[in-house]
């Protein structure tokens, strides 16, 4: 097999690169929509050609939250698996098969939205009804991703058989955890789309059970955000230490936190349904408690990250309480971008704890605060880490080098992004606390005094959004440059080793049956009784409303 010196097989490189193309094209389209949204919301722009605000918002949500993330993550994970446990020709074929199915699904859904027949936003809450191909396309994206899941499972399985008794490589372990999480979570959304939405939108049944569909959706919706976050954590735990010239602080703690994410990120969907009438208050609180459990692995991660930085800085001879900060490669964009992402996670995670705080959710629910929150989590922490990964991954895949110039441009991109987001997300948080709603086009709310107060913050969002869009253009330029213009050469695929001071990893951490068993048990505990309640006390179903989304 032809393998270049960086350890990526040429065929695997094209597979990963295909995913990256979809991700970056999505970034550009989605970012453009984001800019337009901020301009419309501030009252500075009216969309031409009969394009609807909620149509572009649907594009923005679907293409950034569902398409960009899924394609980047699956592509990145294939790169990690190929590098750590290898990929056979058969596995690569099945990976390609999954890719094409996902792409076909994406195009199907996108066309439906562009034709104006699916302005239902990326959460597609019933009984707003889109044209059937919207749901069918989404189902295909999920099915394609499952092929990716099983390909990854197979890769590790084959490796384990060849390397009996050895612990699996850390990154392969993490990829498999994330794909397990994804598979178990997507069963919920697949169930509602296949059993409820598609037959209903095709007219095979007259009504839909709204609360059942929402509950299945949010069973998927929360682990979805961890599916985005975990690849960033992979880079923080196992790649950044190499870039900064250090070692992994603790292999076991890294694995432990991933196992905790698997167990606790699924049985918590009710924290998105806290203000809904049809769910029992006690079960809401139980899921709030479980939600707080999933904060613990992030506490572990925060410590591990700082510890890695401090130990590395000190090993380079920098002393003092914070002197070790000087030992970090601040001018290396492969470190700088994810580092800024990590810092953004401090307010981002804090906001998440507030959102999940049961009755306190009434202060922020569906206000623009929430939008501010997830533009920090996924829109900054995750995205900046993905950018940080791209600066070495794309050159590795294309057999080129990350030049000094691109490194500098990347640093500028990071600062532009952070600054734009600070303004946009900051004003979203404040406006949200004042009561300004999310998912809303420009409105004076009948001349209400409160709405006048919000306008200043909408303008600030438009300024932040414009700065962010400059960031998007920069990033797309960097992406294209790294593919076509950077000088040929070898770029390192950074994978860290474990610190020699770290303890050996205990065997039980790879007891898959145990972890899957606990995960399933927790899901059954958190959902069985309330779900039966919901079904038993169901009101009459709802017919579809497709006229409300026409403009």
């Amino acid at each position: 097999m032809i393998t270049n010196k960086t350890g990526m097989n040429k065929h695997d490189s094209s597979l990963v690169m295909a995913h990256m193309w979809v991700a970056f094209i999505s970034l550009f389209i989605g970012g453009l929509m984001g800019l337009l949204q901020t301009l419309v919301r501030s009252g500075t722009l009216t969309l031409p050609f009969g394009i609807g605000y909620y149509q572009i918002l649907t594009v923005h949500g679907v293409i950034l939250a569902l398409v960009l993330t899924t394609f980047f993550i699956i592509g990145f994970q294939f790169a990690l698996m190929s590098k750590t446990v290898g990929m056979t020709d058969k596995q690569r074929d099945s990976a390609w098969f999954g890719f094409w199915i996902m792409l076909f699904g994406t195009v199907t859904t996108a066309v439906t939205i562009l034709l104006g027949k699916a302005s239902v936003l990326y959460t597609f809450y019933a009984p707003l009804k889109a044209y059937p191909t919207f749901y069918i396309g989404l189902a295909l994206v999920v099915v394609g991703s499952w092929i990716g899941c099983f390909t990854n499972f197979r890769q590790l399985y084959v490796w384990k058989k060849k390397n009996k008794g050895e612990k699996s490589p850390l990154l392969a372990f993490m990829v498999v955890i994330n794909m397990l999480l994804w598979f178990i979570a997507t069963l919920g959304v697949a169930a509602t789309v296949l059993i409820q939405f598609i037959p209903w939108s095709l007219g095979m049944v007259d009504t839909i059970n709204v609360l059942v569909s929402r509950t299945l959706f949010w069973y998927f919706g929360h682990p979805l955000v961890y599916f985005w976050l975990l690849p960033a954590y992979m880079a923080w735990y196992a790649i950044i230490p190499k870039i900064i010239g250090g070692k992994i602080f603790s292999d076991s703690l890294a694995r432990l936190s991933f196992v905790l994410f698997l167990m606790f990120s699924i049985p918590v969907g009710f924290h998105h349904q806290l203000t809904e009438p049809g769910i029992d208050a006690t079960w809401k609180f139980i899921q709030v408690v479980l939600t707080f459990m999933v904060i613990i692995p992030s506490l572990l991660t925060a410590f591990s990250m700082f510890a890695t930085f401090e130990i590395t800085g000190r090993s380079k001879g920098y002393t003092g309480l914070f002197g070790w900060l000087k030992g970090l490669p601040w001018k290396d964009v492969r470190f700088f971008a994810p580092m800024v992402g990590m810092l953004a996670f401090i307010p981002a995670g804090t906001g998440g704890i507030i959102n999940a705080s049961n009755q306190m959710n009434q202060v922020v629910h569906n206000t623009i605060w929430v939008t501010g929150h997830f533009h920090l989590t996924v829109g900054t922490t995750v995205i900046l880490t993905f950018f940080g990964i791209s600066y070495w991954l794309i050159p590795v895949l294309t057999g080129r080098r990350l030049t000094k110039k691109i490194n500098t441009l990347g640093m500028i991109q990071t600062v532009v992004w952070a600054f734009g987001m600070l303004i946009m997300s900051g004003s979203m948080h404040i406006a949200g606390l004042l009561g300004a709603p999310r998912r809303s086009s420009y409105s004076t709310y009948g001349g209400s005094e409160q709405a006048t107060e919000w306008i200043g913050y909408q303008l600030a969002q438009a300024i932040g959004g414009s700065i962010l869009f400059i960031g998007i253009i920069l990033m797309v330029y960097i992406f294209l440059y790294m593919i076509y213009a950077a000088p040929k050469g070898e770029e390192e695929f950074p994978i860290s080793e474990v610190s020699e001071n770290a303890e050996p990893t205990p065997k039980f951490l790879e007891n898959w049956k145990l972890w899957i068993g606990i995960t399933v048990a927790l899901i059954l505990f958190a959902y069985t009784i309330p779900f039966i309640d919901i079904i038993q006390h169901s009101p009459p179903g709802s017919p579809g409303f497709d006229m409300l989304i026409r403009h």
Partner: protein
Amino acid sequence: MSKSSLQMKKKQAPKEEEQPELKGTFIAVMGLGLFILISWFIVYFIFVAR
């Protein structure tokens, strides 16, 4: 640089049990914890006041 890193190794190596110097990490995470506490209570008091 390599010299000082050698010195560090010497300092760290002697006992297996010895733990790495992590004072800065500790202060940083405690600061993070404080930030969470303060932010949470701000919104909590907004909730109570409304």
